[in-house]
């Protein structure tokens, strides 16, 4: 307990690093996968290869990706960029499937109604397709966010890992407290992020409150 009191500065710093190392890839993942998913629904031959590629990329162990990336894109081995890019790749490879499924779940008659009252493509996608796809996209987004928060810690092995650095610290000093603090904060962060996303989804889909929620996809 005294360790926690003596090291609040360190804990806050690592918590802060953990938050942005996990949230930036989530946002980037969403920003990349939504247009990509839209393109894949327009040119449907792209959809299956993209989802398959996502499956392969998602199966890569995170530590492997953290180390292979510098060799491919030329970043420094101990750079935060590796973690952010690797987690963004995971986010896109998982989200792309949900975005495609979500956009495909928009009923055909709704699309036709929008076109016939004069909606242009961009306006239709933003104001009609995406809101209808929100529940399916958010199912993937919740998985991505929680998985990212737990994966950031692995980065501590190569020196950039937010709360993960409390694990390596505790391990090197044969001292349990930092590890327990790290695990608890990491779990709490995942829980808060998940609850926030559920809240955000409710805000974005006010009509869904009246009906049965979309059945969650089991992965």
């Amino acid at each position, binding site marked *: 307990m005294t360790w926690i009191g003596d090291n609040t500065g360190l804990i806050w710093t690592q918590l802060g690093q953990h938050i942005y190392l996990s949230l930036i890839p989530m946002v980037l993942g969403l920003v990349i996968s939504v247009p990509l998913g839209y393109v894949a629904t327009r040119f449907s031959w792209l959809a299956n290869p993209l989802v398959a590629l996502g499956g392969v990329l998602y199966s890569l162990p995170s530590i492997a*990706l953290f*180390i292979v990336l510098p060799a491919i894109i030329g970043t420094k081995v101990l750079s935060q960029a590796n973690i952010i890019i690797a987690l963004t790749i995971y986010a896109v490879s998982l989200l792309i499937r949900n975005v495609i499924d979500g956009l495909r779940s928009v009923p055909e008659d709704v699309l036709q109604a929008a076109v016939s009252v004069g909606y242009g493509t961009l306006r239709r996608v933003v104001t009609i397709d995406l809101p209808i796809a929100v529940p399916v996209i958010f199912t993937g987004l919740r998985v991505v966010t929680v*998985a990212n928060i737990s994966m950031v810690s692995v980065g501590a092995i190569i020196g950039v890992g937010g709360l993960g650095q409390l694990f390596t610290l505790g391990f090197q000093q044969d001292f*349990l407290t930092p*590890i327990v603090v*790290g695990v608890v904060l990491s779990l709490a962060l995942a829980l808060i992020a998940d609850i926030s996303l559920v809240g955000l989804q409710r805000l974005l889909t006010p009509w869904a409150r009246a009906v049965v929620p979309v059945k969650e996809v*089991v992965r």
Partner: protein
Amino acid sequence: MIQGFLDYITDPANWSGAEGISNRIAQHLGYTFLSLLIAAVIAFPVGLLIGHTRRGAFIAINTANAWRALPTLGLLTLVVLLIGIGKVPVIIALVVLGIPPILASTYAGVSGVDRATIDAARGMGMTGREILTKVEIPIALPLIISGLRSATLQIVSTATVAAYVALGGLGRYVIDGLSLRDFPQMLTGAVLVAVLAILLDLCFAAIGRYAVSAGLTGRLRRNTDTKTSTAPAPAGV
């Protein structure tokens, strides 16, 4: 950087011996299969029980959700500090990470079987055990296999990280290479683990393709259709 990696991985001297690549791959696969086996032995029956009786679903779903949030490095360092350095604590940690996906997908597969199908089986006079083994498990098989697949990928990945707490396997190249600032060696470990994960993933895809009943996948539907419609009369008649 890539040249150094190619030199490292194509050097025969790096492939042989106790610290050679062949042995590290064998170790990595050994840890993975041992942990997967123990996790399956524990999780599979529990998943079947919860799915078959449809009680305790709350536990199955929540363990699976909490599992995703658990930082693997935290779990590894915690278990090793509590039990001590060695293979056993690490295997325990790997098993702990392997259980939730198998449990959750077995539960989801078995409890997702259409009630009408189960009623039909019961109507034909099947006992509870027969319904489980002849109806529920075969129908749940695609999900069960995908749960095993998730567990395997998680274990392969975590076994790499476990080199940090003194496990052998391919993670050794990553951790040792890092402390020596030997980047080609790190890259060798990372690439081999990635290839191993993809190969295991393909194995599960193949198992899924051939183990799942043709009646479920529709793989043989066209064949059976033509057989039933154009089947010649038995020769002896």
